[in-house]
């Protein structure tokens, strides 16, 4: 069975990520972000959201574990920061209901949601510059980079919260990620 581990960056919705995966029938567990990488046995990782870039523990090391990674909210920003992109304050906080335009309909993670999808978000900061090798896969009126992917490396990130009930097609994002991890 595919096993996907959620890395807890102290986010309000971390447990819902575990629940979404559990409800889709994969083996899952939530672990603290200080857990040594060698103790994590997984076919894929979810980096949860969280309040503070200074409390991301060993997230940088998890990106080198050679398994697909889905970064959510702060998790996306961690991927961007660690791999040479940049993060800064948005002009406009992204809260609650946001309509996201999918830019790459072939993207393995969110391409199936094209042309657009309604999501729930909660963030002040956003990714300003993509790291090398990444494709800009979604955008919205309130946030330029709503999602990015590096399919070759198996690294994906979304700025919104696919795990909360108000995100219309959140389950599909997890289903797509499970497919990516099962390959």
């Amino acid at each position, binding site marked *: 069975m595919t096993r996907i581990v959620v890395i807890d960056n*102290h986010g*309000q*919705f*971390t*447990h*819902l990520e575990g*629940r979404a995966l559990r*409800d889709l029938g994969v083996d899952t567990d939530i672990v603290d972000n200080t857990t040594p990488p060698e103790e994590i046995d997984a076919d894929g990782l979810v980096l949860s959201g969280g*309040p503070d870039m200074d409390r991301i523990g060993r997230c940088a090391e998890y990106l080198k574990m050679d398994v697909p990674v889905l970064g959510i909210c702060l998790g996306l920003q961690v991927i961007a920061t660690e791999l040479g992109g940049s993060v800064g304050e948005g002009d406009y*906080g992204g*809260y*609650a*209901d946001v309509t996201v335009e999918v830019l790459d309909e072939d993207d393995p993670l969110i391409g199936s949601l094209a042309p657009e999808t309604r999501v*729930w978000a*909660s963030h002040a900061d956003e990714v300003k510059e993509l790291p090398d090798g990444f494709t800009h896969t979604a955008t919205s009126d309130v946030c330029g980079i709503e999602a990015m992917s590096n399919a070759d490396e198996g690294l994906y990130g979304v700025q919104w*919260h696919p795990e*909360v*009930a*108000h995100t219309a097609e959140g389950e599909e994002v997890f289903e797509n990620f499970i497919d990516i991890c099962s390959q």
Partner: protein
Amino acid sequence: MVDVDSFIDEATAEIREQVGDEHAIIALSGGVDSSVAAALAYEAIGDQLTPVYVDTGLMRKGETEGIRETFAFMESLRVVEAQDRFFDALSGVTDPEEKRKVIGEQFIREFEREAKDTDAEYLVQGTIYPDRIESEGNIKSHHNVGGLPDVVDFEGIVEPVRDLYKDEVREVARALDLEEVVAERMPFPGPGLAVRVIGEVTPEKVEVARDACHVVEEETEEHEPWQAFAAVVGKATGVKGDNRVHGWIVSVRSVESRDGMTARAQELPWETLQRIQSRITGQNENVARVVYDVTHKPPATIEYE
């Protein structure tokens, strides 16, 4: 979604094992969480459990009578009339966290007396998963008689629904044959109407909040909100029957949610909003205006404090 039948079997077995032949006590708030925890514990250990319901004066309309009826099958149920003591303790307190603390402490005093009186060795609590993360994340404190173990030397604390979300607790409630009113009852905060009154908690403001919440619950029922209520948020000028009124502002909130973690402000029909406005201002001479809160969660929380 949790498997309800196996959950109930496991939870009751765990309670039985933990409590053994000792006596346990639980604070019944009238909400779904503590009702389910109490029913599980009662099923597990029967009259070794004493459910205690404290009427703080901060309860919803008809709530105390409802509790007496719903839990009439528990012979050990105790109802404590503590309204005056709570209002005295809250006099002059305006800070939301301080209010929660004062209520929590008064609650503990009431409960401590009952616990000692019944020689309870175990405390059963209806803590659910979101309570734990909100407390751990310092977003809000949840009292759930949190400080009681410091005062009473319990052998242990039993939290049978600690890993469940609200929707899962409701599933369990249905399976336990708790009356529909409990299973479908909207979430209600631990500190009661005190957090639906901004600023000092007075009997007058609480009475307005109680009546307004009742109106909102009735008028929104057909729209099936996840939670709907009203809060007294301040004072403003109005004019009633040619007389100036400096009266309360009542804010109405009605949201859709699955688990309380996120929420959408409900798009209620204008006629419904107007009927709510008319009833609240008409029945309460000290209310000057009624407003509707259109903010989702995030950025707002569902409750005001």
